[in-house]
């Protein structure tokens, strides 16, 4: 159904990060928002994406923000970097979703929901680190990878899953020897995202705890937060709720803290 060759060919087809994005990220890395905005302006699609993203209600701006320099200014270095990575991710997303009942708007909403609430979690944990803030933008890659590999095998997946409680991640792992999060890692390497981003994403799979306690804790928060987000009706209806297995034991020790932060009762 899916072989290592299919996966290699998928990874091969991933385009390198466009020059404008690379340059924008370079300026953001050194904290130069003005130059970053100026370079970003050259990419109309990036500009449009940034406008769409920050004007979503979850970002909470009272007035519509249209100017790209203003957007970078309001977001600051970390969130701008996160938004640029989010944009990079959309370049990988399909124009038409088949496995998941997603569309462009819903996918952007998911990115916004993840980004804003991840920030809330990092504030709660007193973490200020732009690489860690950006890690969340790689998480939807797991959804894109699943879509790309399984979109022509929907019926096969349904049949297998009607006899066994098996998630897409396990199916890929058993068939091809590497899982969805390994493929995310390959994407992030291709786009030269930071090493810690990769480590956090791997830990957030819930099945590969990190030896580094700090990274592992972030992995737990991200794993639980992913399922908190995917428990919203709009994402359940998009059939995102069970594409990977929720590892309830992995997040047991942070659940109370999480539920207080998210005011779950």
């Amino acid at each position, binding site marked *: 159904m899916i072989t290592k060759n299919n996966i290699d060919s998928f990874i091969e087809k991933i385009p390198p990060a466009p020059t404008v994005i690379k340059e924008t990220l370079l300026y953001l890395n050194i904290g130069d928002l003005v130059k970053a905005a100026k370079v970003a302006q050259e990419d109309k699609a990036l500009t449009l994406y940034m406008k769409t993203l920050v004007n979503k209600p979850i970002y909470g701006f009272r007035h519509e923000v249209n100017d790209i320099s203003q957007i970078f200014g309001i977001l600051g270095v970390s969130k701008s970097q996160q938004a640029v990575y989010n944009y990079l991710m959309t370049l990988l997303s399909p124009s038409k979703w088949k496995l998941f009942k997603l569309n462009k708007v819903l996918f952007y909403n998911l990115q916004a929901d993840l980004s804003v609430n991840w920030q809330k979690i990092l504030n709660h944990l007193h973490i200020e680190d732009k690489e860690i803030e950006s890690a969340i933008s790689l998480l939807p890659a797991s959804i894109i990878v699943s879509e790309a590999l399984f979109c022509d095998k929907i019926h096969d997946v349904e049949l297998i899953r*009607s*006899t066994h*409680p*098996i998630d897409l991640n396990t199916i890929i792992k058993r068939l091809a020897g590497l899982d969805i999060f390994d493929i995310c890692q390959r994407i992030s390497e291709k786009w030269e995202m930071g090493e810690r981003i990769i480590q956090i994403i791997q830990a957030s799979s819930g099945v590969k705890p990190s030896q580094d306690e700090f990274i592992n804790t972030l992995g737990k928060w991200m794993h639980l937060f992913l399922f908190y987000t*995917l*428990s919203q009706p709009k994402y*359940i209806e998009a059939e995102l709720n069970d594409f990977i297995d929720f590892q*309830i034991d992995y997040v047991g020790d942070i659940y109370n803290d999480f539920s207080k932060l998210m005011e*779950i009762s």
Partner: protein
Amino acid sequence: MRAIIKNGIGTFYPQGFLDGSSSAAILTLEDIQATIHNNSDMILVSLKKVIFFNRNGLDVFVKMFQKVRAANQTAVGFCDYDTKKYDAISRFYKDDLMFSLFKSQDIAMLFSSSFKNQNKNVLLFSDDKSQRAAMAIELHDNGHNPIIAQTQEEFEEKVTAKNAYDIIISDTFLGQMGQKVATRVTGNAIIYTVSSFLDAEISATFNISYHNNSLNVGFRLFIFDAYKVISMNVHALNFFSKLSSSGAEYNATICFIGMSFEKTPLVFKETLEDAGIMFFNQMDDILQNKELLEELGASSPANVKEKRTLNKVIVSELPNFIDATVATIEMMTNSQAIKEAAKVEKIEISNKEGKIASSLGFYGDIDGMVILVFPIGIAKKACELLIGEEVDDTEIILDTLAELVNIVGGKVKTLLSDQHISVDITLPRTYPNVDSLLEIVQNKKGVQVDLSFNNDKFLFFLTR
């Protein structure tokens, strides 16, 4: 959401957080009805991967449970939880617990009439006396050996001897159980479970198409587990007499186990015996007696009066059957199939060694039987995807093979439905060796297609 159906239990696996709005998005009444339609006599929602739920979240499921019970008498409930979750549910529905709560899937299976591995030693405790009694009766009726702890202290003391029990039941509540005629396969006998009052309703609750196709697939022994039958009226008497007569052309036997005639006229028993139905007191009287099993047809060759032949409609659908089979096995083994030969003949298996087989009947707009003969290597490879590791246990391989053949059946069903041909499929039957398969099909003519998967020879046979 789709359920996973195993041993007659359809289980839904929601993940994450359940509140009123998320639960409504997860499960619909149609999802449950579709699961019941696929031979489930128990519907459960697993809470294994649910970290948070509130009363509103569970209410959505409970309302659906009520509707399903009223319409289908199916057993319903939740499973896979810890004590904290059990206490929360018990608190939410203190005086209104109409559904069941099973701490684990294994416990739920003990109460499912479709569960085939019986005779388990079960330690059981509930602080509710009537629950203890109800569970013990159900377990006993289902062929298990319940050991009841009367107090928490006694339970804690007994539980220390873990090895003495196959399963330990606690934090479990038995709601109303099912009334459907449930089906399970034990070896090569089909067991139907009937209960309560047998009247004209039996012709509605008994799946006659399924029964007829089981006959066609090669099952010859049909056992009615009637321990829980209170009485039978003349309509049911006529139904069973007819069922027995119609099975006679296949040389099939129908037996009743544990039927009490306290509230049923004894003359009914004589009438049924005249129709060829046999009566036994205990299930083990048959299942543990190999000679009797053979005599009753559970392992004897088919002796079909009228041989059915392939017809044009089935042959014209052959590519669909082949495609479904090849695609499924390619999918499960990640290997490529090469079609080597096709012929219309009696089945011919050149090398019988190291092969296992499975058959699956289909019925509806067209009917027939698909037989697949696997080299054990392909079967093991296909099992790896579902189980996740290499296995050598023949029973596990045969069980997984049955699931694989079910997947083939599901695929055939979809491909045919694309052409507006509607069929249902029977439970798959498995054969640990080629000889046991040949007992059933050696005289049947059909289309045989020889395939090769990475040089492993695989055989597909389509017949009626």
